[in-house]
């Protein structure tokens, strides 16, 4: 039986079909409306575990939102456009540090973050030092 969160998630603007791999749910939706995602999950009482950043081509960053849904983990894969993505921190406070860290490590900008200051990056390094060719 399809859970309520699955139905609501697949109805979001920019959503893609859910798949179930390695005992967890995945959605690969590069242009998903992340604020609608955050608001829906908040309304459903689903906890945000964390957000993962992965460097992809042309300076963009793949951003994976990991949610603790009943019975496992939901992973929603979105991508920055021109290096930017809307911040979900104004909706889900738990995203605050995760977004700042992705900004530090991959140079992505989270538009609308209430405090987009350096979190974990050593002050002498530039943003995005986790990207290929940026370290060392």
């Amino acid at each position, binding site marked *: 039986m399809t859970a309520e969160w699955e139905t609501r998630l697949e109805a979001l603007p920019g959503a893609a079909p859910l798949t179930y791999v390695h*005992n967890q749910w995945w959605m690969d939706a590069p242009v998903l409306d992340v604020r609608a995602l955050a608001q829906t999950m908040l309304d459903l009482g689903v906890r945000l575990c964390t957000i993962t950043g992965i460097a992809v081509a042309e300076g963009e960053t793949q951003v994976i939102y990991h949610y603790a849904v009943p019975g496992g983990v939901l992973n929603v894969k979105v991508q920055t456009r021109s290096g930017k993505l809307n911040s979900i921190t104004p909706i889900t406070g*738990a995203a605050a540090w995760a977004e700042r860290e992705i900004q530090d490590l991959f140079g992505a900008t989270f538009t609308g973050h209430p405090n987009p200051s350096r979190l974990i990056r050593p002050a002498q390094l530039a943003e995005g030092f986790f990207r290929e060719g940026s370290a060392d």
Partner: protein
Amino acid sequence: MPYTIPIGPYHPSMEEPYKISVTCQGETIHDVAIDIGFSFRAIELLAQRRNYVQDLVLVERVCGICSGVHTMTFAMAAEALLELDVPARAQYIRVIISELERLHSHLLWAGIAAEDIGFQTMFMEIFALRERVMDALEAISGNRVHYAMNCIGGVNNDITDPDALLAAMRDIKQALEQVVMPVFTRNPTVRARMVGVGMLTKEQAIADGVVGPFARASGLDADIRSEHPVYQALGFKTVVEHGGDVFARVLVRAFEMLESARLIEQALHNLPAGPLCAPGGPFTVVPEGEVTVRSEAPRGELLYYLQGNGTDHPARVKIRTPSYVNIPAVEPMALGQQLGDLPLIQASLDPCCSCTDR
């Protein structure tokens, strides 16, 4: 006139570096700002440049206290991509090591909490008890802190003397029941320092996404162990308290120590025979794919995201430790509280800066 006190990154009450700036009016805290990153080591980036065998050694160094759960979770992620079935004996040994680690971590925390409230004799009692756990871990693995117990597909060491471990568990349970529990739950001085201090409501706990004993002390029934088949077979019971204050956090950890000792005894009594590792190893190459794996570390949910690319080193490793999501909650807990209670409030979530900074 409000004034701001910068505390840290080197603390009188903590050995690890992080900075908390509190703005006070009189003795009352009105604002809190937290800075981390003072011991950032880029372990995720380093892990992407090493092979899987080296990475097991590396991720064990994320934390000196919950080291075993890091290697276990990393190995579980690789096992998921390899579609390996870990033998039953290895799964039970992983549970025993995880619970010994939880005992060690909670006892360390209880000792420091006792010291923070000025109860030095209790600190020494608890640290003597912790030594018994460290001795047990050393007897099994050869190491006190970095146990090197996990490999991809199983465990590296067997438990060859379960009777010695059972005897240690009996002693630890007795000391917990006769010394630690009564002091932390009934001593009026201890209660006066903890009851009603550093409140975090259930609603705040959900909004802030906090995890572990910290979340369970605010009434959240959330423990990854309850979803694990071996824990289910051992009759695991989640410990939940509803007070939401420092005292509730003490109670959760105290009862969890007793539950850990019981789980270790049960697991030893039911330890299945069989191999320690899945056949076909060592497993040095992980296929293409991605997986997210969670475990219940002593401080709460630990999450690893692993992306394999068909080679002997991962394409991406993401580590989200429990302290990373718990430390920001110092702010809602401290607002409106007395400045003198701040060391206890921040200690009550059992923060680990080594985990947070990775």
